């Protein structure tokens, strides 16, 4: 019990600290693949610190919602990221918030981000919010169907139990899980505004989505939103790692060495997934915005197929 709370606290700090590093590493690898030298892997930390120290400029007609939204977005994303077992299963909050709650917490963050985009009443903010919600209307159900598949498979919606089940002996290769994995990868690409859905590096481009919503933000507010965005990337990578590659993750009550192995394995997984993500991004071109719904519908259909296969193959 005490161990659970300790693990949970470590986890809360860990996601906060590691998230910018993951963004930094992916940017570095991407630059190298493009034969650029690229900024240091610690650049995201510097960016956040710089933003925090700068003056905050907000639009004349920004309301209280505009000023509170960054805190809500940051808090919900942080909580959601801390709910995913990264190096050890058996988090104290697992019994309080399952994977459906994680999806919904991300929904809360997105809801406030989209509202903040509309608050000042600029056309860029509107375009970003409207497209973000359109993507979400397909990405969120796809994600939930992945959740259904995995939960049915493990007999639980709690991530700690799912992770423990996946390390167990009863799990082999399974077509539903494969479909769920592909769907989840597509959803993570879309939700993190990566190529081919959105380009995290652009500015002033009519197809941008995430950047358009946060165009009016600056200073400490922007720092919080950037930190939340990098935590969201970490969250999705951790989620895929926790469900589909749970190797090395310790279970509750192990000794300290096992925890250290768990941490090492987690670091390796982050590196591997970050590399795979960047490879994919570099190899593919950005889509037109109305191709994205088709891309996401693939995820939705794969998720549905995976769930239906499990529903009808279950012998009662």
């Amino acid at each position: 019990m005490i161990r659970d709370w300790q693990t949970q606290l470590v986890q809360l700090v860990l996601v906060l600290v590691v998230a910018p590093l993951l963004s930094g590493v992916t940017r570095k690898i991407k630059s190298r693949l493009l034969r650029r030298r690229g900024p240091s892997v610690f650049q995201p930390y510097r960016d956040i610190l710089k933003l925090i120290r700068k003056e905050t400029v907000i639009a004349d007609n920004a309301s209280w919602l505009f000023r509170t939204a960054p805190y809500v977005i940051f808090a919900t994303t942080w909580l959601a990221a801390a709910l995913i077992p990264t190096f050890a299963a058996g988090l104290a909050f697992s019994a309080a918030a399952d994977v459906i709650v994680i999806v919904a917490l991300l929904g809360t963050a997105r809801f406030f981000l989209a509202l903040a985009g509309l608050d000042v009443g600029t056309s860029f903010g509107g375009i970003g919010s409207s497209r973000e919600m359109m993507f979400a209307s397909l990405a969120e159900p796809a994600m939930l169907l992945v959740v259904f598949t995995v939960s049915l498979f493990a007999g639980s919606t709690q991530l700690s139990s799912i992770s423990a089940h996946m390390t167990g002996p009863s799990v082999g290769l399974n077509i539903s899980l494969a479909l769920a994995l592909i769907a989840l990868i597509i959803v993570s690409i879309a939700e993190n505004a990566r190529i081919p859905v959105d380009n995290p590096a652009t500015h002033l481009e009519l197809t941008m989505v995430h950047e358009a919503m946060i165009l009016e933000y600056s200073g400490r507010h922007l720092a919080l939103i950037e930190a939340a965005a990098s935590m969201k990337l970490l969250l999705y990578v951790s989620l895929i790692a926790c469900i589909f590659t749970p190797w090395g993750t310790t279970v509750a009550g192990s000794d300290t060495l096992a925890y250290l192995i768990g941490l090492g394995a987690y670091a390796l997984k982050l590196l591997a997934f970050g590399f795979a993500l960047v490879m994919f991004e570099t190899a593919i071109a950005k889509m037109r915005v109305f191709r994205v719904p088709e891309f996401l519908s693939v995820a939705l259909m794969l998720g549905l197929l995976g769930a239906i296969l499990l529903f009808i193959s279950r012998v009662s």
Partner: protein
Amino acid sequence: MSGIPINSVTPFLLNQLAAYGVGLLLLLAALGILVCRRSFGIRFIYASCALVCSALVCVALWALLAPGQGLEAVEIPIGVPLGRTWLALDPLSAAFAVIVNLTTAIVSFYAIGHGTHAAEPQRVVPFYPAFVAAMNIVLLAQDAFSFLVGWEIMSLASWALVVSEDRSASNRRAGLVYLIMATGGAMALLLAFGILAGPEGGYTFDAMRQTAAFKPGAIVLALALIGAGSKAGLVPLHAWLPLAHPAAPSHVSALMSGVMTKVAVYGFVRIVFDLSGPPSWWWSIPVLIVAAITAILGVLYALMEHDLKRLLAYHTVENIGIIFIGLGLALAFEASGFAVAAALAIIAAIFHVFNHSLFKSLLVLGAGAVLSATGERDMERMGGLIHRMPVTAFAFLMGCIAISALPPFNGFVSEWLTFQAILMSPQLPQWIPRLLVPAVGATLACSAALAAACFVKAFGSTFLGRPRAPSAAAAKETDRWSLGAMLLLAALCLGAGVLPGFVIDSLAGVSNLLVGAQLPVQSDQPWLRIAPIDPARSAYNGLLVFSMIIIAAGLTGVIVRRFASHSLRRSPAWDCGFPEPSPAAQYSSSSFAQPIRRVFGSFVFRAREHVTMPKVGDTGKARLQLDLHDTLWEALYDPVIRFVNAAADRLNGFQFLTIRKYLMLVFAALVLLLVIIGAWR
């Protein structure tokens, strides 16, 4: 005075108190006719309604939490010839009576302030208590006669309220469509009760339960779906709802959307789960299909809408779909003998009934406040109201979060419970439900995500941005009564989301009555969490999630305040360097929905966009024309209307015959009937 032991109050006394409450409401309706011309009289009527409804909440809650042995109904010696009227609060009635009266009490409180704005209060005030009383009669009724009488008074009173502002043609049309649909629905329910009562005429619910196993349940199910479903707003019988609900004064709209649809759900549950005997497994299939279509179409219609109150009315349709998904799952589980799973599904459904009555009334009341402040229902002429109506905006935002099923509010909890019920369904023995349920789950997830999009649109174009019309720029915050009512509803939404265990526990009696099982007692769970089946399988702790969000946000705030730069400067909007001063350049409600319209609308609404560009060198305006079709109305209702009109034209000639021809017609009819009777024998 020491507390009265909870069991010392007989159920009979509670039933009697409830019956007195209904009587008082009817009395208020009569009194309303006398005092409705004075502002003090209007306030008095609404305040009394709030008081009586609060008392009814207490009575019903008592009956729900301390169900007595047996049911000693109150007997009123009026009814069908030689019959009597039976009123009682069994757990199902009590649960719905709590939901209905709680929301009604708060809405009446709102009306103390809002109701005096009405142009012709004498057309609203007397009907309001009658409407509330009729809903209570439906809930209390323990026989088909009083149920149907209550149902009809409810329909007629609400119709009178819908047409109370009948100066516009659209309101008159709404009233007409509503009246026709209500008549059809009541007819279906009458037939359903007729079948259940059987040739012996056992019209009390007790008599129906005893003989239910020998009745054609399938026909009863179909009639209940039509009768209760048309009142609740199941697609395709929803057509009257987005016309009629917004036409009424706002506090009445809140009751119609938030409460009357729940009375319809009650009617369906009462007939199908309680009176029709054990269900067959295939009953769940039509219910689930209709429910899923209702959920997704409701939200898509809402997304296309830019009238705030109509948007909310379409969302009622969506939420009714979500409720019926829960009911359909419960039917499937009950028929296959999975009693605990059935209890989970039915509690998810009734929890959503409770939640929806809270947040939908909150949102409609907010729309009413905006309507009386700006005189507008069209979101394309609003904007920036968060600066001028901050408290309304705050309460409305809470409602938006709740209805979008986002934690830590209550809408999320009932949706989470429904998802848990869906995850129980692979154990169903039949193939068709097992194939159907994942698709239903996908539809539910899709409609939740679309609802979030829709409420970003609704809140964004109403309260955020810059005012699009002078009326929105000049709006003033609404009165204190209304604000109090909205904040109270928002607090209840949060409360039910943070402490859902108490709601689930108090519904135990309902699931025992309907499916013969109950969920584990949630107040035994540590840390006030809920674990509907087994804590190892799934658990949710709203309190923890809520407090963690607060703590995380607070901590961030403290750290930012301690370490970050404090300087904050206001400046003109950045907008990538090219800000457009005209408020018309903002994203509007329909441009916000454009991407979703392109993805979903081309199929559902046959949406087409035509862009007319001026020739090169021509300085005329370019035009964007949008064609949207209400495909359901065109496919189902238009043919009926055309047929009725054509038949009326044909029959018109019969009005102008000579008396000789009329006599011949009568004679021919007589001969025809005799021939038929002769052939029959």
